[in-house]
């Protein structure tokens, strides 16, 4: 679930390398989000540990759409990883944008599948504890996917402004960290809520 990007090093005018503010900010945000979601998963495991029947009677879960969405998100993560490599190693902002668009499109399709999947379940957030945690975790997960897409658009915006280049791609690094976190979170959410259930 943790991001795997290596933070960039910058030589400041004082001669001290430091982590760029935008990267450090996203790392702190990602870690706080991970701890937040861990509480939801802990609640899920606790509820399941105490239940005599799981999932509760009458609950039906179809993991097909979730599996496709997870697969698409993993592919999008590969795109974003390559986009970062493109600007970092080649300095090719246009190639970075092209790969980032690929990731965005894949994530948009995955997000749509997640919402379709969610709208088709035969229980609501108020049905029982299962429904409460399922809906809360799923909606928040989808919101994070949407957030990652918005973040990617911010990177594209900076690219269109001509700001992002080989020597200044911290925003791309930060977006990649958040993107990989969101994909890991989505896959973990799918495995816990739909496959293990």
């Amino acid at each position, binding site marked *: 679930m943790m*991001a795997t990007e290596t933070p960039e090093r*910058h030589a400041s005018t004082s*001669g001290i390398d430091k*982590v760029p*503010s935008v990267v450090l900010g996203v790392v702190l945000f990602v870690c706080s989000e991970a701890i937040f979601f861990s509480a939801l998963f*802990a609640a899920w495991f606790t509820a399941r540990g105490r239940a005599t029947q799981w999932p509760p009677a009458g609950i039906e879960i179809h993991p097909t759409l979730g599996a496709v969405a997870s697969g698409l998100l993993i592919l999008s993560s590969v795109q974003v990883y390559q986009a970062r490599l493109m600007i970092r190693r080649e300095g090719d902002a246009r190639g970075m944008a092209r790969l980032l668009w690929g990731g965005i499109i894949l994530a948009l399709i995955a997000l749509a599948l997640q919402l379709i999947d969610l709208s088709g379940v035969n229980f609501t957030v108020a049905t029982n504890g299962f429904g409460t945690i399922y809906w809360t975790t799923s909606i928040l997960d989808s919101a994070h996917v*949407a957030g990652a897409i918005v973040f990617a658009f911010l990177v594209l*915006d900076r690219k*269109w402004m001509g*700001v992002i280049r080989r020597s200044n791609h911290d925003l791309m690094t930060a977006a990649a960290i958040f993107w990989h976190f969101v994909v890991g979170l989505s896959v973990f959410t799918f495995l816990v809520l739909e496959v293990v259930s």
Partner: protein
Amino acid sequence: MRQGARIWVILGLFGVVATIAFVVLTARFLQAASGAVMLGVFALSMLYIGWVLHSGRHTDPTDQPDAEAEVGPEHIFPPSWAPPLLALGVALFAVGVRFTPVLLAVGGMIIVLTLFGWIVQRIDVIRLQHAAPPGAADPRDSGNPGMGHDHA
């Protein structure tokens, strides 16, 4: 190890010990899993932050003659009301999914209008940026106040 990283690594190692102790001392698997997830994620998060901070190390600047100073505020995304409005729209939309189609519609409308306004605003800025001659002032400073783009 850099001083800033040390406290995070210590917290992370404490989390690792706590996770192992919790799993060993808890008899039931699912209860152990719930605690291990929370403590484990906490430990990993602390270690990750510690690693990130540790990765910035002291060097001689002459080692990296091509390195640039960290970007200044002119490279940060400019202020706008669009993100909080978008958040409001998404929140209303999410609540509407569960409770009432009215909130769903209001949230959806806020999302679409905000995105439209934000994109139009950005396209204008980008167009000005590309049209401006080299060395000209940043077009974001031209005083276009649309969507709260105040650049104060």
